[in-house]
Protein backbone atom coordinates (compact mmCIF):
# COMPACT_ATOMS: atom_id res chain seq x y z
CA UNK A 1 0.00 0.00 0.00
CA UNK A 2 2.80 2.34 0.94
CA UNK A 3 4.60 1.65 -2.33
CA UNK A 4 1.41 2.38 -4.31
CA UNK A 5 0.84 5.61 -2.39
CA UNK A 6 4.42 6.67 -2.97
CA UNK A 7 4.14 5.74 -6.61
CA UNK A 8 1.03 7.92 -7.08
CA UNK A 9 2.58 10.76 -5.11
CA UNK A 10 5.84 10.78 -7.02
CA UNK A 11 4.15 10.60 -10.43
CA UNK A 12 1.82 13.46 -9.40
CA UNK A 13 4.78 15.64 -8.39
CA UNK A 14 6.67 14.61 -11.49
CA UNK A 15 3.72 15.70 -13.68
CA UNK A 16 3.44 19.00 -11.82
CA UNK A 17 7.12 19.71 -12.17
CA UNK A 18 7.04 18.91 -15.84
CA UNK A 19 4.23 21.37 -16.55
CA UNK A 20 5.92 23.93 -14.29
CA UNK A 21 9.15 23.42 -16.16
CA UNK A 22 7.33 23.81 -19.47
CA UNK A 23 5.80 27.09 -18.29
CA UNK A 24 9.21 28.23 -17.08
CA UNK A 25 10.74 27.37 -20.45
CA UNK A 26 7.92 29.19 -22.27
CA UNK A 27 8.53 32.25 -20.08
CA UNK A 28 12.26 32.19 -20.79
CA UNK A 29 11.79 31.92 -24.54
CA UNK A 30 9.14 34.67 -24.50
CA UNK A 31 11.66 36.82 -22.64
CA UNK A 32 14.28 36.11 -25.32
CA UNK A 33 11.74 37.15 -27.94
CA UNK A 34 11.18 40.36 -25.98
CA UNK A 35 7.51 39.63 -25.29
CA UNK A 36 5.87 40.32 -21.89
CA UNK A 37 3.34 37.52 -22.38
CA UNK A 38 2.14 35.02 -24.93
CA UNK A 39 0.14 36.90 -27.63
CA UNK A 40 -3.53 35.97 -27.99
CA UNK A 41 -4.59 37.09 -31.47
CA UNK A 42 -8.36 37.51 -31.98
CA UNK A 43 -8.31 36.10 -35.47
CA UNK A 44 -6.47 33.08 -36.70
CA UNK A 45 -6.56 34.15 -40.33
CA UNK A 46 -3.17 32.93 -41.48
CA UNK A 47 -4.57 33.07 -45.02
CA UNK A 48 -5.57 36.71 -44.82
CA UNK A 49 -3.75 39.16 -47.08
CA UNK A 50 -1.36 40.61 -44.46
CA UNK A 51 -0.12 37.28 -42.96
CA UNK A 52 0.34 35.90 -46.49
CA UNK A 53 2.32 38.95 -47.55
CA UNK A 54 4.43 38.70 -44.39
CA UNK A 55 5.04 34.99 -45.00
CA UNK A 56 6.31 35.85 -48.48
CA UNK A 57 8.68 38.40 -46.94
CA UNK A 58 9.82 35.79 -44.41
CA UNK A 59 10.56 33.25 -47.17
CA UNK A 60 12.37 35.90 -49.22
CA UNK A 61 14.51 36.78 -46.18
CA UNK A 62 15.35 33.08 -45.65
CA UNK A 63 16.38 32.68 -49.28
CA UNK A 64 18.55 35.77 -49.08
CA UNK A 65 20.25 34.56 -45.88
CA UNK A 66 20.78 31.06 -47.26
CA UNK A 67 22.78 31.83 -50.35
CA UNK A 68 23.11 35.56 -50.73
CA UNK A 69 20.34 35.15 -53.28
CA UNK A 70 19.20 38.54 -54.42
CA UNK A 71 15.51 37.98 -54.96
CA UNK A 72 13.52 40.08 -57.33
CA UNK A 73 11.14 42.17 -55.26
CA UNK A 74 8.28 41.04 -57.50
CA UNK A 75 8.75 37.47 -56.23
CA UNK A 76 7.52 38.70 -52.88
CA UNK A 77 4.08 39.15 -54.35
CA UNK A 78 3.66 35.71 -55.89
CA UNK A 79 0.77 34.67 -53.67
CA UNK A 80 -1.05 37.92 -54.11
CA UNK A 81 -0.62 38.70 -57.77
CA UNK A 82 1.80 41.12 -59.37
CA UNK A 83 2.00 44.64 -57.98
CA UNK A 84 0.85 47.54 -60.07
CA UNK A 85 3.33 49.75 -58.33
CA UNK A 86 6.23 49.34 -55.98
CA UNK A 87 8.13 51.73 -53.80
CA UNK A 88 11.46 50.34 -52.92
CA UNK A 89 14.30 48.10 -53.94
CA UNK A 90 14.93 44.94 -51.99
CA UNK A 91 17.90 46.44 -50.11
CA UNK A 92 15.76 48.21 -47.53
CA UNK A 93 14.07 44.92 -46.69
CA UNK A 94 17.36 43.21 -45.83
CA UNK A 95 18.30 46.24 -43.71
CA UNK A 96 15.12 45.99 -41.65
CA UNK A 97 15.29 44.51 -38.15
CA UNK A 98 11.54 44.23 -37.97
CA UNK A 99 8.60 44.35 -40.37
CA UNK A 100 5.08 44.73 -39.06
CA UNK A 101 1.72 44.58 -40.80
CA UNK A 102 -1.34 46.35 -39.39
CA UNK A 103 -4.97 45.38 -39.86
CA UNK A 104 -7.48 47.98 -40.95
CA UNK A 105 -9.64 48.92 -37.95
CA UNK A 106 -12.53 50.53 -39.85
CA UNK A 107 -15.34 48.03 -39.36
CA UNK A 108 -17.43 49.08 -42.32
CA UNK A 109 -16.56 50.74 -45.59
CA UNK A 110 -17.52 54.35 -45.21
CA UNK A 111 -18.08 55.19 -48.81
CA UNK A 112 -19.83 58.38 -47.95
CA UNK A 113 -21.05 60.51 -50.79
CA UNK A 114 -19.87 63.85 -49.40
CA UNK A 115 -20.35 66.90 -51.58
CA UNK A 116 -20.35 64.67 -54.67
CA UNK A 117 -17.08 62.98 -53.62
CA UNK A 118 -16.89 59.28 -52.78
CA UNK A 119 -14.19 58.18 -50.39
CA UNK A 120 -13.11 55.26 -48.27
CA UNK A 121 -11.58 55.38 -44.77
CA UNK A 122 -8.79 53.32 -43.19
CA UNK A 123 -7.35 53.30 -39.67
CA UNK A 124 -4.35 51.48 -38.22
CA UNK A 125 -3.25 51.21 -34.60
CA UNK A 126 0.46 52.02 -34.42
CA UNK A 127 0.59 52.11 -30.62
CA UNK A 128 1.72 48.46 -30.36
CA UNK A 129 5.15 49.06 -31.89
CA UNK A 130 7.88 47.77 -29.54
CA UNK A 131 10.14 50.40 -27.97
CA UNK A 132 13.42 51.24 -29.64
CA UNK A 133 12.19 50.67 -33.19
CA UNK A 134 12.26 53.48 -35.77
CA UNK A 135 10.14 53.45 -38.94
CA UNK A 136 12.32 53.42 -42.08
CA UNK A 137 9.50 52.87 -44.58
CA UNK A 138 5.75 52.36 -44.53
CA UNK A 139 3.29 51.37 -47.22
CA UNK A 140 -0.45 51.22 -47.57
CA UNK A 141 -1.56 48.32 -49.80
CA UNK A 142 -4.91 47.89 -51.46
CA UNK A 143 -5.96 45.35 -54.08
CA UNK A 144 -7.49 46.46 -57.34
CA UNK A 145 -9.69 43.97 -59.12
CA UNK A 146 -10.99 44.03 -62.70
CA UNK A 147 -13.38 46.87 -63.25
CA UNK A 148 -16.82 46.23 -64.64
CA UNK A 149 -17.47 47.02 -68.29
CA UNK A 150 -18.75 50.52 -67.43
CA UNK A 151 -15.21 51.88 -66.98
CA UNK A 152 -13.37 49.50 -69.31
CA UNK A 153 -11.41 52.12 -71.25
CA UNK A 154 -11.16 54.59 -68.39
CA UNK A 155 -8.08 55.79 -66.51
CA UNK A 156 -8.38 56.35 -62.77
CA UNK A 157 -6.39 58.53 -60.44
CA UNK A 158 -6.30 57.02 -56.96
CA UNK A 159 -5.13 59.37 -54.20
CA UNK A 160 -4.39 58.70 -50.54
CA UNK A 161 -4.82 61.49 -47.97
CA UNK A 162 -3.88 61.77 -44.33
CA UNK A 163 -6.78 63.00 -42.18
CA UNK A 164 -5.59 66.09 -40.29
CA UNK A 165 -8.89 67.00 -38.66
CA UNK A 166 -12.31 65.37 -38.70
CA UNK A 167 -15.37 67.55 -39.31
CA UNK A 168 -18.84 66.14 -38.86
CA UNK A 169 -20.63 68.86 -40.79
CA UNK A 170 -18.24 69.28 -43.68
CA UNK A 171 -15.36 67.40 -45.32
CA UNK A 172 -12.37 66.55 -43.14
CA UNK A 173 -9.10 68.48 -43.43
CA UNK A 174 -6.86 66.32 -45.58
CA UNK A 175 -3.23 66.23 -46.61
CA UNK A 176 -2.34 64.47 -49.90
CA UNK A 177 0.24 61.69 -49.47
CA UNK A 178 0.56 59.71 -52.68
CA UNK A 179 -1.34 58.94 -55.88
CA UNK A 180 -1.40 56.41 -58.74
CA UNK A 181 -2.80 56.65 -62.24
CA UNK A 182 -3.98 53.27 -63.55
CA UNK A 183 -6.07 51.69 -66.25
CA UNK A 184 -9.48 50.43 -65.21
CA UNK A 185 -8.62 47.01 -66.62
CA UNK A 186 -5.50 46.57 -64.48
CA UNK A 187 -5.46 44.14 -61.57
CA UNK A 188 -3.09 43.70 -58.61
CA UNK A 189 -1.77 45.34 -55.47
CA UNK A 190 -1.45 49.11 -55.35
CA UNK A 191 1.25 50.41 -53.03
CA UNK A 192 1.25 53.91 -51.53
CA UNK A 193 4.11 55.48 -49.60
CA UNK A 194 2.99 56.61 -46.14
CA UNK A 195 6.42 56.70 -44.45
CA UNK A 196 6.31 60.31 -43.24
CA UNK A 197 2.75 59.96 -41.95
CA UNK A 198 3.59 56.75 -40.07
CA UNK A 199 6.52 58.44 -38.36
CA UNK A 200 4.24 61.33 -37.43
CA UNK A 201 1.65 58.93 -35.98
CA UNK A 202 4.27 57.05 -33.95
CA UNK A 203 5.49 60.30 -32.38
CA UNK A 204 1.99 61.83 -32.03
CA UNK A 205 -0.52 58.97 -31.55
CA UNK A 206 -3.37 61.46 -30.94
CA UNK A 207 -2.97 62.76 -34.49
CA UNK A 208 -3.62 59.33 -35.95
CA UNK A 209 -7.00 59.96 -37.56
CA UNK A 210 -6.45 57.52 -40.38
CA UNK A 211 -6.33 57.70 -44.15
CA UNK A 212 -8.88 58.50 -46.82
CA UNK A 213 -8.82 57.20 -50.37
CA UNK A 214 -10.38 58.98 -53.35
CA UNK A 215 -10.81 57.81 -56.94
CA UNK A 216 -11.50 60.07 -59.89
CA UNK A 217 -11.54 59.90 -63.66
CA UNK A 218 -9.30 61.98 -65.94
CA UNK A 219 -12.14 64.47 -66.21
CA UNK A 220 -12.22 64.88 -62.44
CA UNK A 221 -15.42 62.91 -61.86
CA UNK A 222 -15.53 61.20 -58.46
CA UNK A 223 -15.82 57.41 -58.70
CA UNK A 224 -16.99 55.01 -56.02
CA UNK A 225 -13.84 53.00 -55.00
CA UNK A 226 -15.90 49.81 -55.18
CA UNK A 227 -16.89 50.58 -58.78
CA UNK A 228 -13.22 51.20 -59.58
CA UNK A 229 -12.48 47.64 -58.43
CA UNK A 230 -10.80 48.48 -55.11
CA UNK A 231 -11.38 45.68 -52.64
CA UNK A 232 -12.85 46.66 -49.26
CA UNK A 233 -13.98 44.90 -46.09
CA UNK A 234 -16.62 42.88 -47.92
CA UNK A 235 -14.11 41.50 -50.42
CA UNK A 236 -12.12 38.25 -50.13
CA UNK A 237 -9.84 37.89 -47.07
CA UNK A 238 -6.79 37.33 -49.28
CA UNK A 239 -7.28 40.77 -50.86
CA UNK A 240 -8.01 42.92 -47.81
CA UNK A 241 -6.20 46.29 -47.60
CA UNK A 242 -3.49 46.55 -44.96
CA UNK A 243 -0.52 48.62 -43.91
CA UNK A 244 3.07 47.42 -43.60
CA UNK A 245 5.96 49.21 -41.87
CA UNK A 246 9.69 48.50 -41.85
CA UNK A 247 11.75 49.21 -38.75
CA UNK A 248 15.36 49.57 -37.77
CA UNK A 249 16.36 49.08 -34.14
CA UNK A 250 17.67 52.25 -32.52
CA UNK A 251 18.76 50.48 -29.35
CA UNK A 252 19.96 47.01 -28.42
CA UNK A 253 17.36 44.86 -26.67
CA UNK A 254 18.68 43.81 -23.29
CA UNK A 255 16.84 41.17 -21.30
CA UNK A 256 15.73 42.46 -17.95
CA UNK A 257 17.14 40.71 -14.89
CA UNK A 258 14.64 38.49 -13.06
Amino acid sequence: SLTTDNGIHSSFIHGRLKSQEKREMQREILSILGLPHRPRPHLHGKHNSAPMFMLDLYNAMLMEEAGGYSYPYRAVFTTQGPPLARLHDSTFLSDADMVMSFVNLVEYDKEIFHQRRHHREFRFDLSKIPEGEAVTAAEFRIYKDYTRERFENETFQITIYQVLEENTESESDLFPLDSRTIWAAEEGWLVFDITATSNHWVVNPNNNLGLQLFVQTTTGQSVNPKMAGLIGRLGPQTKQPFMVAFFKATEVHIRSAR
Partner: protein
Amino acid sequence: SASSKQKNQGRSRSSKSQESFRATSLTENGSSDQRQACMKHELYVSFRDLGWQDWIIAPEGYAAYYCEGECSFPLNSYMNATNHAIVQTLVHLINPENVPKPCCAPTQLNAISVLYFDDSSNVILKKYRNMVVRACGCH
Protein backbone atom coordinates in the same frame (compact mmCIF):
# COMPACT_ATOMS: atom_id res chain seq x y z
CA SER B 1 11.50 25.10 -9.97
CA ALA B 2 14.55 27.14 -9.03
CA SER B 3 15.54 24.63 -6.36
CA SER B 4 15.08 21.76 -8.83
CA LYS B 5 17.28 23.67 -11.26
CA GLN B 6 19.92 24.05 -8.60
CA LYS B 7 19.64 20.37 -7.79
CA ASN B 8 20.02 19.55 -11.45
CA GLN B 9 23.02 21.83 -11.73
CA GLY B 10 24.54 20.22 -8.67
CA ARG B 11 23.84 16.80 -10.12
CA SER B 12 25.32 17.69 -13.49
CA ARG B 13 28.31 19.29 -11.79
CA SER B 14 28.96 16.15 -9.77
CA SER B 15 28.48 13.91 -12.81
CA LYS B 16 30.78 16.22 -14.80
CA SER B 17 33.43 15.95 -12.10
CA GLN B 18 33.00 12.16 -12.19
CA GLU B 19 33.39 12.29 -15.97
CA SER B 20 36.54 14.38 -15.75
CA PHE B 21 37.82 12.02 -13.15
CA ARG B 22 37.18 9.13 -15.52
CA ALA B 23 38.82 11.07 -18.30
CA THR B 24 41.89 11.65 -16.19
CA SER B 25 42.14 7.95 -15.44
CA LEU B 26 41.83 7.23 -19.13
CA THR B 27 44.62 9.69 -19.86
CA GLU B 28 46.75 7.97 -17.34
CA ASN B 29 46.01 4.74 -19.13
CA GLY B 30 46.99 6.35 -22.39
CA SER B 31 43.56 6.45 -24.09
CA SER B 32 42.83 10.19 -24.08
CA ASP B 33 41.07 10.05 -27.49
CA GLN B 34 37.86 8.88 -25.73
CA ARG B 35 37.54 12.27 -24.04
CA GLN B 36 35.09 14.48 -25.88
CA ALA B 37 36.55 17.64 -27.36
CA CYS B 38 34.71 20.97 -27.37
CA MET B 39 32.13 20.73 -30.13
CA LYS B 40 28.68 21.73 -31.34
CA HIS B 41 25.72 19.51 -30.39
CA GLU B 42 22.16 19.28 -31.66
CA LEU B 43 19.49 21.22 -29.74
CA TYR B 44 16.17 21.96 -31.39
CA VAL B 45 13.77 24.51 -29.93
CA SER B 46 10.30 23.50 -31.08
CA PHE B 47 7.63 26.24 -31.03
CA ARG B 48 5.15 23.50 -31.93
CA ASP B 49 6.02 21.49 -28.80
CA LEU B 50 5.62 24.66 -26.75
CA GLY B 51 2.04 24.85 -28.10
CA TRP B 52 2.54 28.18 -29.86
CA GLN B 53 1.19 27.32 -33.33
CA ASP B 54 -1.75 29.67 -32.76
CA TRP B 55 0.43 32.78 -32.75
CA ILE B 56 3.78 31.82 -34.31
CA ILE B 57 3.29 31.55 -38.07
CA ALA B 58 6.87 30.54 -38.91
CA PRO B 59 9.18 28.79 -38.23
CA GLU B 60 7.89 25.65 -36.45
CA GLY B 61 11.11 25.74 -34.46
CA TYR B 62 14.82 26.25 -34.95
CA ALA B 63 18.09 24.40 -34.43
CA ALA B 64 19.75 26.40 -31.66
CA TYR B 65 22.66 23.96 -30.95
CA TYR B 66 24.84 24.10 -27.85
CA CYS B 67 28.56 23.78 -27.14
CA GLU B 68 29.90 21.02 -24.94
CA GLY B 69 33.17 19.22 -24.37
CA GLU B 70 36.56 19.71 -22.86
CA CYS B 71 39.09 22.35 -23.70
CA SER B 72 42.24 20.36 -22.95
CA PHE B 73 45.83 20.81 -24.03
CA PRO B 74 46.64 20.71 -26.89
CA LEU B 75 43.63 22.71 -28.06
CA ASN B 76 42.67 21.21 -31.37
CA SER B 77 44.00 23.23 -34.26
CA TYR B 78 40.63 23.25 -36.05
CA MET B 79 38.93 24.60 -32.97
CA ASN B 80 38.55 28.33 -32.42
CA ALA B 81 40.49 29.18 -29.29
CA THR B 82 41.36 32.60 -27.92
CA ASN B 83 45.00 33.35 -27.14
CA HIS B 84 43.99 33.64 -23.53
CA ALA B 85 42.40 30.17 -23.62
CA ILE B 86 45.74 28.69 -24.75
CA VAL B 87 47.57 30.43 -21.89
CA GLN B 88 44.88 29.37 -19.41
CA THR B 89 45.19 25.76 -20.57
CA LEU B 90 48.93 25.85 -19.91
CA VAL B 91 48.45 27.44 -16.50
CA HIS B 92 45.83 24.81 -15.71
CA LEU B 93 48.37 22.10 -16.49
CA ILE B 94 50.82 23.70 -14.06
CA ASN B 95 48.24 24.34 -11.35
CA PRO B 96 45.19 22.07 -11.98
CA GLU B 97 43.75 22.51 -8.48
CA ASN B 98 43.35 26.28 -8.66
CA VAL B 99 43.07 27.16 -12.35
CA PRO B 100 40.18 25.69 -14.34
CA LYS B 101 40.36 24.70 -17.98
CA PRO B 102 39.01 27.21 -20.51
CA CYS B 103 35.30 26.99 -21.22
CA CYS B 104 33.79 25.51 -24.34
CA ALA B 105 31.38 28.20 -25.57
CA PRO B 106 29.89 29.66 -28.78
CA THR B 107 32.29 31.77 -30.83
CA GLN B 108 29.92 32.53 -33.70
CA LEU B 109 26.18 33.00 -33.43
CA ASN B 110 23.59 33.43 -36.16
CA ALA B 111 20.25 35.23 -36.22
CA ILE B 112 16.79 33.76 -36.83
CA SER B 113 13.64 35.43 -38.13
CA VAL B 114 10.33 34.77 -36.41
CA LEU B 115 6.92 35.58 -37.88
CA TYR B 116 4.09 35.93 -35.38
CA PHE B 117 0.75 37.54 -34.54
CA ASP B 118 0.46 40.08 -31.73
CA ASP B 119 -2.60 40.54 -29.49
CA SER B 120 -4.25 42.78 -32.11
CA SER B 121 -3.76 40.25 -34.92
CA ASN B 122 -1.11 42.45 -36.51
CA VAL B 123 1.78 40.39 -37.88
CA ILE B 124 5.39 40.92 -36.82
CA LEU B 125 8.45 39.65 -38.69
CA LYS B 126 11.43 40.15 -36.44
CA LYS B 127 15.08 39.24 -36.70
CA TYR B 128 16.61 37.94 -33.45
CA ARG B 129 20.37 38.04 -33.27
CA ASN B 130 22.65 35.51 -31.52
CA MET B 131 20.11 32.67 -31.47
CA VAL B 132 21.91 29.84 -33.30
CA VAL B 133 25.38 28.50 -32.53
CA ARG B 134 27.41 28.52 -35.71
CA ALA B 135 30.74 27.56 -34.16
CA CYS B 136 32.06 26.57 -30.73
CA GLY B 137 35.46 27.39 -29.33
CA CYS B 138 37.57 27.62 -26.20
CA HIS B 139 37.46 30.85 -24.17
